[in-house]
């Protein structure tokens, strides 16, 4: 699967199908701090991202 991290605009590729919760854990991201977007929909932690899917993980925490 292909992952774009925003706002860093960083591209990551992970092999195999994974649950969203497992992807976030692998990337060290806390639940509730990012939106996981596939196409024009959000995906919940329990959903599975397939090997060929492209997702966007968008940070929602702002500071200052």
């Amino acid at each position, binding site marked *: 699967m292909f992952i774009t991290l925003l706002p860093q605009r960083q591209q990551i590729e992970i092999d195999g199908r994974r649950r969203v919760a497992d992807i976030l854990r692998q990337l060290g991201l*806390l639940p509730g*701090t990012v939106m996981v977007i596939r196409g024009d929909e*959000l995906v919940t932690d329990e959903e599975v991202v397939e090997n060929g899917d492209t997702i966007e993980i968008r940070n929602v925490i702002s500071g*200052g």
Partner: protein
Amino acid sequence: MMKCKRCRAKAEVQVRHHNAAFCRSCFIVVFQRQVQRSIEKHRMFTAQEEVLVAVSGGKDSLALWDALIELGYRTTGLHLALGIGEYSQVSTAKTVDFAHHRNLPLITVDLEAQGLAVPTLARFTKRPACATCGTTKRHEFDRVAFENGFKVLATGHNLDDEAARLLGNVLHWQVHYLAKQSPVLESTHARLARKVKPLYRVTEYETAVYAFFRGIDYVIEECPNSVGATQLMYKDALNRLEAVMPGTKLTFVQDFLTSGQPAFSAAADGAPQSCEACGMPSFGTLCSYCRLRREVESDHLGHPPRAARTIA
């Protein structure tokens, strides 16, 4: 498959601290109801009052403006073009687009055109950019509200902002700040509007989801000056607690407001005087913003830098 708590359709978003999941359309309804409930519970404003909404171009303030419009409130946007390079240019463009496409009234103050961009203020006064930014925002919000006759000023502070601020105030026992940390700050001066935070019960995640669901084109990039900000550390600490104990942030803020804050009320500052230079509220002869301006102007006269030549 996770199902929507309201309509049992496939859920698109999970709200852990309410132990619930929602589909897109139900989430929008629930979000707007939460905002409405906060406005009514704290008597922030009525449907008859004109509300000045501070909008940065970020998710929170644009989500707030959108929700207030959807709920039928009368609003005008206020945007400060802070002059922080490309970040500010994009922020202003997105705010202007939002207002234009919805035919909403928007007041824009261009600080860079006045020679008072945040980087200029920071460079001349040798203060942290975030400190000069905060002072400028508070002054300009108050000034524009007063000069345009607004009695209510709404900001997009969310639950994460309030919880992080509370944690910082508690860690340093800032009793004066604890005394006035509230979703509503009543006016204490003839030139001060009532300040309200209708999003104080919704998390940063919820405002981002609302903005996404509503198709709001907001600034995703972070302000370059926020890198390493203390508030981000507090938010991270709170989110680590929230991950294992959902509801921690909401309980922290709500219980403070009901049980903690009254204990600090005696530490509240009295009513402010008026600034001798601009007439706005001040706890000294000059308000913080006029002191900041004078530092810039005196430095400018002694060492005229190119960036400050437009100061009036």
